[in-house]
């Protein structure tokens, strides 16, 4: 069955934020710092400009707290004095038309006192977060190991590059509150943030997501800032204000995937048995904390890869630098850490002289094994299924006809936890509602936004199946915060499994009650963590996730030995989704995710200068086009999980984890050169090949 809102999308009738027409709305704009670190000396408004025709907002105008609500209260909505990165917002302007807006912006002069910025991870000293995971005795095991292999890996920034830029429209209410329409993943994050900055009550702020033109984590936390800015302007202007970023501003100012380094020391026995993994994982968080502690957490937990090892030590830190804050991006730390873990398998197998596939088979998790946090994997461990399926579906190798083109093949095996980490879901205590109205309409109320992944469709399917009614009879209620309960953010591969699970429970109860009661019937459900899931926040021990999804990727690359260009020609992704609730949508998640990861591995490079991105345009930050995309074959290997709705696990993020290490392994297969970092740009590859 086609996606719910699909018809609107193929006819151009779907309404994204910038498509919403609001009469009398003004246009807003953000004036930012131009230096990476320092102090604001003066903000001067040129008297030659007639300022009463526009509205200007500075930190002094903020009615509530000058903070962007998230994990730590370190990021101001507008800088008051201190500048910590080059894109720090300082002044907001709104005007009735764009020409006047530009003219006003040109008449604002900000003077700074520049300070020495910390621009590189190796110079950073301010810690944003630290995590230690310890299992067994790593030092002893490394001492006892017959072979110890040590390598360091590096990963770069990556831009989410949703095709619809960030944007929000704020409509002021008579009581000092606002209604926000925007491109966002998490209506209640935005709600909480705007409430705090405006200093109003929960009831005075309403957040309504418009159709979302792609997000990938990039619209998890950043939209709070956009919405706050739009709200501040709208309240001061007493009229609706549209704050729609253009692509240049979007790339320059919004969050990126955290760059970082991963150092591994792996100890093995003479028979290739895995004895010890000693891992240091360091991420560059940028100027503010944002989500760095939780990105670091997910990255650290996945850092040892899907392998059973008796002795593991993972030391992870996120550091602050004077660069734009990094944040959520599909995979959330795991693509970075699993890049190291997977390439480590390759390096150890090379030292041992055994095929890396054989080593994976020897080391990989099986039912009953325990992870680095001591989590025992009791069911739905798909390592063997996905490895077999991927290898079986890989085409025979085609050797390129040109002698200057080298072929290589690489494999990776990855896992990804579904839902929030550790006690996260327990603390969230997500709520959903399923109801049957007086006139027999079935309604599902959650805060899960549709951003292309298929939330509308999946949740309607789950409800319809549990209610035992036709799919068409179920309505997904728009995610207006004044109407829907807080079912948590649309992130962390949690919508289908965690929220879907709650929807199924609520829908079953509605069905049961319909046997004896007349509508209206309304059932509210709140997530309660099963008692079998135990997590210790202090010691970082226990069940980090209810369950993991697994994937194996096989890639073929062609490397041009003269230009250093890498072309990924074929990609097979075998994935264990538990149960695929909607195979076409599930395949879509895989195909899109693996291509983002191919971009991450090969061509997507953020170049930095003076604390900002140099290539902050779509002409210079390159993502894969249809011609760059490999032929992608997706194999869904079902392996139901008893705790998920109809057996489903989360699959939104795992497609991002596998391709980068597989591409680097394939480049090595083609050239004999280990790059150990992404993106594997032609410059880096030519340098490595010539040395």
């Amino acid at each position, binding site marked *: 069955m*086609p*996606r719910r*809102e*699909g*018809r*609107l*999308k*193929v*006819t*151009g*009738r*779907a*309404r*994204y934020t*910038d*498509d919403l*027409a609001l009469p009398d709305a003004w246009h807003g704009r953000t004036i930012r710092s131009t230096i990476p670190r320092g102090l604001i000396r003066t903000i001067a408004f040129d008297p030659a400009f007639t300022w009463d025709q526009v509205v200007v907002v500075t930190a002094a105008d903020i009615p509530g707290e000058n903070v962007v609500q998230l994990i730590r209260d370190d990021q101001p909505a507008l800088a008051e004095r201190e500048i910590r990165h080059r894109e720090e917002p300082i002044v907001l302007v709104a005007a009735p038309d764009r020409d006047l807006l530009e003219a006003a912006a040109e008449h604002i002069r900000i003077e700074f006192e520049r300070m020495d910025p910390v621009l590189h991870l190796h110079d950073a000293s301010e810690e944003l977060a630290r995590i230690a995971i310890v299992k067994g005795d790593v030092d002893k095991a490394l001492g006892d190991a017959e072979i110890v292999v040590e390598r360091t890996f590096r990963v770069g920034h990556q831009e*989410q*590059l*949703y*095709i*619809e*830029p960030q944007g929000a429209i704020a409509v002021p209410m008579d009581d000092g509150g606002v209604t926000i329409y925007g491109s966002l993943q998490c209506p209640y994050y935005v709600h909480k943030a705007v409430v705090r900055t405006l200093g109003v009550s929960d009831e005075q702020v309403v957040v309504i997501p418009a*159709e*979302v*033109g*792609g*997000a*990938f984590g990039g619209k998890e936390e950043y939209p709070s800032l956009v919405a706050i800015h739009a709200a501040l302007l709208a309240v001061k202007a007493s009229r609706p204000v549209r704050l729609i970023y*253009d*692509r240049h501003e979007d790339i320059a100012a919004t969050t990126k995937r955290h760059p970082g380094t991963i150092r591994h020391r792996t100890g093995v026995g003479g028979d290739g048995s895995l004895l010890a993994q000693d891992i240091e994982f360091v991420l560059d968080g940028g100027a503010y904390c944002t989500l760095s502690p939780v990105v670091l957490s997910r990255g650290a937990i996945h850092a040892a890869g899907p392998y059973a090892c008796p002795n593991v030590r993972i030391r992870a830190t996120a550091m602050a630098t004077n660069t734009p804050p990094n944040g959520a991006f599909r995979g959330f730390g795991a693509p970075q850490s699993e890049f190291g873990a997977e390439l480590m398998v390759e390096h150890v197998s090379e030292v041992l002289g055994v095929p890396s596939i054989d080593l994976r088979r020897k080391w990989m998790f099986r039912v009953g094994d325990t992870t680095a946090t001591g989590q025992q994997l009791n069911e739905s461990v798909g390592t063997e299924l996905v490895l077999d399926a991927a290898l079986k579906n890989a085409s025979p190798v085609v050797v390129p006809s040109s002698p200057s083109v080298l072929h290589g093949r690489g494999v990776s095996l990855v896992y990804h936890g579904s839902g929030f980490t550790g006690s996260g879901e327990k603390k969230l205590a997500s709520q959903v509602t399923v109801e049957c109205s007086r006139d027999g309409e079935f309604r599902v109320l959650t805060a899960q936004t549709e*951003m*292309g*992944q*298929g939330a509308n469709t999946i949740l309607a399917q789950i409800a319809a199946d549990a209610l035992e009614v036709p799919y068409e009879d179920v309505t997904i209620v728009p995610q207006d915060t004044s109407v829907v309960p807080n079912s948590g953010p649309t992130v962390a591969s949690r919508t289908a499994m965690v929220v879907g699970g709650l929807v199924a429970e609520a829908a079953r109860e509605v069905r049961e009650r319909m046997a004896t009661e007349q509508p209206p019937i309304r059932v509210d459900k709140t997530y309660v963590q099963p008692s079998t899931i135990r997590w210790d926040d202090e010691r970082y021990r226990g069940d980090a996730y209810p369950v993991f999804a697994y994937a194996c990727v096989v890639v073929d690359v062609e490397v041009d030995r003269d230009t250093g260009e890498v072309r990924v020609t074929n990609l097979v992704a075998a994935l264990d989704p538990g149960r695929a609730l909607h195979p*076409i*949508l599930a*395949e*879509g998640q*895989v*195909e*899109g*995710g*693996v*291509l*983002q990861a191919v971009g991450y591995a090969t061509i997507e490079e953020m170049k930095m200068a003076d604390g900002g991105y140099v290539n902050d*345009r*779509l*002409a210079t930050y390159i*993502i894969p*086009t*249809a*011609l760059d*995309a490999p032929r*992608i074959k*997706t194999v869904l290997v079902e392996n139901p999980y008893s705790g998920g709705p109809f057996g489903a696990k989360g699959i939104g993020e795992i497609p991002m984890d596998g391709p980068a290490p597989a591409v680097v392994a394939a480049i090595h297969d083609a050239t004999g050169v280990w790059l150990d970092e992404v993106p594997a740009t032609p410059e880096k590859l030519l340098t490595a090949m010539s040395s």
Partner: protein
Amino acid sequence: MISFTVNDHAVSVDAPGARRLLDVLREELGMTGTKEGCGEGECGACSVLIDGEVVNSCLVSVGQVEGCRVLTVEGLERNGKLAPLQHTFLERGAAQCGICTPGMLLSAHALLQRNPTPTYEEAQTAIAGNLCRCTGYTKIIEAILACPTRPS
């Protein structure tokens, strides 16, 4: 006044000739199916057909389309029925977030007009100017190749 046709309807707009066609479509004519992704001709979200050719409407000034035939996504349906291409996009999961879909459909439509039975590589090339971040292009190409009839 600048006169042209949009989806076979004659329109006359009172706009500066240098105004982007994209803005005229969206803001003057209220046709928001055409999207802005980059404003620099890189992403193809604003693709429309001008006299049958795929063009980025963010790079075209409205003065340049005087007397031309402009086709946007809103013009693909016929009598409230999806065109075959829209139908295969819908059925095969070629639209995810949907923001690239209007432009993608127009590039595909132009391809099928001149070549009703394209190869995989021809489909790939035809949409190379339209960026999609959701699908990996796989299902978009599948949908183009599966389109059962030549568009009229």
